[in-house]
C-alpha cells in the first residue's frame, strides 16, 4: 500500500521506496482479475480482430457484452449501484489488461468505463445513479462522452451547443464531433451551455426526439471503434437528465475537467498494456525470423530495440502503478473531499501519464515495425495495426500540447496557493546551488549514481522553473517553448524517479540480485533520459537569459549533470534484451 502524498510533491521532495506501490505487490485477487481480463482479450477478442477492424459492430458489441458479464466493466462503479467498487490499482490493472492487443476494442471499453460512465458515478444525482449505473456497470448500456465540437477541440470551453429549459424538457441545439462509441452507444454525456452561457452536462439517450448520429469517420487507426458526429436539432432531454441537478448549471466544465483527469490516467495505463503486447509480438517475430543464417534477435541493433522498448515500457508501468497507488492513498486520506476532487489533487500526475504513456508507446510501435522489416509494413502481421492504433493517444483526452500546458499551469497554481512549497524549494536551491558539489554526495551502493541523478534532476528543475518564473512572471504561460521544456523536465523526473524507486523497492525486499534486470532497465533509461534534463534546462535558460548571466547559469546546469557516468550501453542492452529474447515476452 502506498503512503499518502500531496499531488506533485515529488517536485520538491524525494520519496522513500517503501512509500510507493509497485506491480510486484499485486494481491492474489488482483492477479486473478488480471488473468480473467487478459485471457478474455487474448482468447476471445484478438482472434476476432479482423472482424472488428471491418467495423462489424455486432462482433464488437457482443464482445463488449461478454466483458460486461465477466464484470470487467464495473470496476469503478460502487457496489451499491451494481458495480464492484474496486480500488484504483485493481481498476487500472484491469484497464491495462483490457488493452493488451486490440486497440479498437480497448478504446471502446475505455471510453465506456472511463469518460462515459464516471461522470454519472462522480456527479450524478441519486436518481441518475440508480437509473443508469447498474446498466452501465454490466455493459447492458454502452456510454459515450460528447464534449468536442468542430470549433471547440482543444478549446473545449468554446462549445456552442445550447440548452434551453422548456417546461419539463431541456431543448438542445448544436452538434458534436469525433464522439467515440457514438454508433453503438445507448447513453451520451453531452456538454452544452445553458442559455448559451453556463456550462452543463446532460444525459442523452439514443432515440430522444431531435437527436441523431452522423456517419462514421474514416480513421487512420482504431478503425474498428466507432467515431461519429452527433446532431441535436431541438432535441428534447427530460429535465431530470441534467447531470448532477440544477446546482451544476454553470459548473459543467468542472465535470469535464475532472473526468478528463481520469481519462488521462486510464489512457496512460492502456499504453502500458499496448506496449507489452507490441514487445511480445516483436520479440516472438525476432526469434523466428532468420537472415544471414541466424535469427535477427541475435543482432545487437535488434537487441537495442528490444531493450529500449522493454526498459521504456517498464518505466512507464512503474510510473503508472505508482500513480495508481497515489490515487488510492489520496482517495483514502482525502475522504472529506469528493472522489473527483481527491483525484484532481493528482491532475499533474494524470497528465504526465497521458503524455509519457502515449509518447513511449509511439516509440515502441515504431521499433516494432522496424523489427518486422517489410512485413511490419503489411497488414498480415500485427505491427502495422499497432502502429496506426497508437497514434491517436497523443491527440485525444487533451492533445499532448494541451497536457503540457496543463502540467505547468497547475504547477503554477499549486505554487501560488502554496499547496506545495515550490517557491521555498526553488529559493533554497538558488541559495545552495553555487556551492553544491554533486560528486561529494555520491556514495557507493546499489544504483547510487541514479539516486543522486534524481536528486540533481529535481534541483535542476527547481532552479530552472524558479528562474523562468522570476524572469517571465505572468508571461510564462505564453512562452510555450519554455513551458514545453519545463513540462518535459517534470515528466522525465517523474519517470526516472518512478523506475528508480521500483528497482530500489524490489532490491530492498528481495535482494539486489533479484533486481538485476530492473537495475539494468533503470540505468538504460537514465542513460537516455538524464541528459535530456540538461538539454531542456538549457533550452529554458537560453530562451530567457543572455550574456554572462546565461553563461553562469549554463555552467550550473553542467555541474549538476556532468558528473553522472552512465552504464555501458552495450552491456545494458544485452542484459535486458537477452532476458526478453529468452523468455519471448515482457517478463518483468
Amino acid at each position, binding site marked *: 500500500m502506498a503512503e499518502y502524498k500531496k499531488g506533485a510533491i515529488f517536485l520538491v521532495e524525494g520519496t522513500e521506496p517503501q512509500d510507493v506501490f509497485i506491480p510486484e505487490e499485486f494481491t492474489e*485477487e488482483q492477479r486473478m482479475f488480471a488473468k480473467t481480463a487478459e485471457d478474455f482479450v487474448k482468447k476471445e477478442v484478438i482472434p476476432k480482430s479482423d472482424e472488428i477492424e471491418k467495423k462489424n459492430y455486432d462482433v464488437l458489441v457482443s464482445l463488449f457484452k461478454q466483458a460486461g458479464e465477466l*464484470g470487467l466493466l464495473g470496476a469503478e462503479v460502487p457496489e451499491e449501484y451494481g458495480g464492484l467498487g474496486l480500488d484504483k490499482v485493481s481498476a487500472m490493472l484491469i484497464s491495462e489488461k483490457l488493452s493488451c492487443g486490440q486497440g479498437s476494442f480497448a478504446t471502446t471499453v475505455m471510453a465506456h468505463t472511463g469518460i462515459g460512465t464516471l461522470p454519472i458515478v462522480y456527479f450524478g444525482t441519486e436518481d441518475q445513479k440508480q437509473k443508469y449505473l447498474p446498466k452501465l456497470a454490466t455493459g447492458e448500456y454502452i456510454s459515450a462522452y460528447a464534449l468536442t465540437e468542430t470549433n471547440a477541440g482543444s478549446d473545449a470551453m468554446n462549445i456552442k451547443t445550447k440548452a434551453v429549459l422548456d417546461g419539463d424538457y431541456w431543448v438542445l441545439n448544436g452538434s458534436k464531433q469525433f464522439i467515440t462509441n457514438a454508433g453503438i452507444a445507448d447513453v451520451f454525456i453531452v456538454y452544452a451551455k445553458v442559455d448559451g452561457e453556463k456550462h452543463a452536462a446532460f444525459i442523452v439517450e439514443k432515440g430522444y426526439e431531435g437527436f441523431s448520429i452522423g456517419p462514421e469517420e474514416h480513421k487512420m487507426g482504431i478503425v474498428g471503434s466507432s467515431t461519429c458526429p452527433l446532431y441535436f436539432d431541438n432535441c428534447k432531454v427530460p429535465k431530470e437528465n441534467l447531470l448532477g441537478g440544477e446546482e451544476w448549471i454553470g459548473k459543467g466544465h468542472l465535470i469535464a475537467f475532472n473526468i478528463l483527469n481520469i481519462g488521462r490516467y486510464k489512457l496512460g495505463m492502456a499504453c502500458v498494456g499496448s506496449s507489452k503486447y507490441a514487445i511480445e509480438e516483436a520479440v516472438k517475430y525476432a526469434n523466428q525470423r532468420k537472415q544471414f543464417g541466424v535469427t535477427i534477435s541475435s543482432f545487437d541493433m535488434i537487441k537495442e530495440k528490444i531493450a529500449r522498448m522493454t526498459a521504456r515500457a517498464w518505466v512507464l508501468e512503474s510510473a503508472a502503478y505508482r500513480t495508481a497507488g497515489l490515487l488510492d492513498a489520496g482517495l483514502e486520506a482525502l475522504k472529506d473531499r469528493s472522489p473527483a476532487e481527491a483525484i484532481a489533487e493528482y491532475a499533474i500526475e494524470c497528465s504526465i501519464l497521458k503524455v509519457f504513456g502515449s509518447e513511449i508507446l509511439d516509440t515502441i510501435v515504431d521499433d516494432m515495425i522496424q523489427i518486422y522489416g517489410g512485413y511490419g509494413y503489411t497488414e498480415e502481421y500485427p505491427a502495422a495495426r499497432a502502429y496506426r492504433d497508437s497514434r491517436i493517444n497523443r491527440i485525444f483526452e487533451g492533445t499532448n500540447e494541451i497536457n503540457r500546458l496543463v502540467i505547468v499551469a497547475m504547477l503554477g497554481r499549486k505554487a501560488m496557493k502554496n499547496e506545495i512549497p515550490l517557491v521555498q524549494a526553488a529559493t533554497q536551491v538558488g541559495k545552495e546551488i553555487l556551492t553544491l558539489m554533486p560528486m561529494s554526495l555520491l556514495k557507493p551502493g546499489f544504483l547510487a549514481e541514479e539516486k543522486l541523478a534524481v536528486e540533481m534532476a529535481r534541483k535542476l528543475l527547481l532552479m530552472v522553473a524558479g528562474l523562468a518564473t522570476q524572469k517571465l512572471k505572468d508571461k510564462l504561460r505564453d512562452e510555450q517553448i519554455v513551458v514545453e521544456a519545463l513540462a518535459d523536465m517534470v515528466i522525465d523526473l517523474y519517470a526516472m524517479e518512478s523506475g528508480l524507486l521500483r528497482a530500489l523497492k524490489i532490491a530492498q525486499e528481495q535482494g539486489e540480485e533479484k533486481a538485476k534486470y530492473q537495475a539494468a532497465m533503470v540505468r538504460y533509461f537514465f542513460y537516455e533520459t538524464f541528459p535530456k534534463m540538461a538539454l531542456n534546462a538549457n533550452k529554458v535558460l537560453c530562451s530567457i537569459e543572455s550574456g554572462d548571466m546565461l553563461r553562469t547559469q549554463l555552467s550550473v546546469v553542467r555541474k549538476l549533470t556532468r558528473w553522472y557516468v552512465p552504464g555501458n550501453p552495450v552491456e545494458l542492452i544485452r542484459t535486458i534484451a537477452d532476458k526478453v529474447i529468452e523468455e519471448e515476452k515482457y517478463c518483468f
Partner: protein
Amino acid sequence: MKAICFVKSVPDTETRVKLAGDRLDKSEIKYILNPYDEFAVEEAVRKKEAGIVDEIVVVSMGPARAQEAIRSALAMGADRGVHIEDDSLDGSDAYATAKVLVEALKKEGGLDTFQLLMFGQRAIDGDTWTVPSMVAEMLGIPSVCNIVKLDIDGNKAVAVRMVEGGEEVFEVELPAVFAGRKGLNEPRYPSLPNIMKAKRKPINKYTLADLGIDAGTVGKAGSFTEVLKYELPPARQAGRKVEGEPEEVVEELIKFLKEEAKVL
C-alpha cells in the same frame, strides 16, 4: 449430491523450463491451475447449475501456492477448498499423491458424502495421467478417464470417452471417478464478482498429522518412483530437404531411415 474436484498447481503453459544442474530451476516459474483440472471444475459447476450437485469441494495437495489454484477453482464456482500442505510431502509420486488425496476425501466424509469425484485427465507438469485411476482403485470404485461427455441420472452416470477412431460409452454407478479432457466443456473465465466471492469462501487446511498419515508412507519414502534428474529435450534440428527424381528420393529416404534415423 456432492462433488469433489482434485486440482493441482502447475507451471504456466508459457513457462520456459530451465534447469539448475539436473534439477528444475523453479525460481522464475509462474503457477496456474492445471488447465485439465479446469474441465473437471467446470463440469462440476455445470452440474451444480443444473441442480444435480449441491456442493463442490476442491482439494489440492501442494505447497502454499496450491492455495492459488484452489482459489481459482473457487472463483469458477466451487464452494469451498481443502488444502493439504506438509513438508514431508515433497517428492511424492503419483501413487503417494493418490494415497494422500484418498485420506483427505475420507476426512471430508468419504464416499458417503461425495458421489462425483472429478479430476483433470493429466497434470501438465508431471504428466503421469495416473492419479485419477489410482484413487478410484484405492477406493474400489469405477473410473472413466479421458471423458468428453458426462450425464448424470440419479445414481447412474453415462460418460463418453474418446478412443482412436470413435467413442466408448460407459454407464457406471456412483460414486465414481471421472477425468476430463478437452472437449468435455469450455471452461469459463472466472468473473470478477466471483473472484471477489472466492476470497470469502473457506479453505480447510490439513497437515499429514491431521489426516493421520505417517510421514514415512508418503513423500519420497512412500513413492515407488523417484525423479533422478531432469534433462532438456535436444534442440530441434533444422529440417533437410531431399530433392531429385522420385526413384532417387525414395532410395535416399530409405537410406536415411535405416542409417541415420535408425527406425527401419
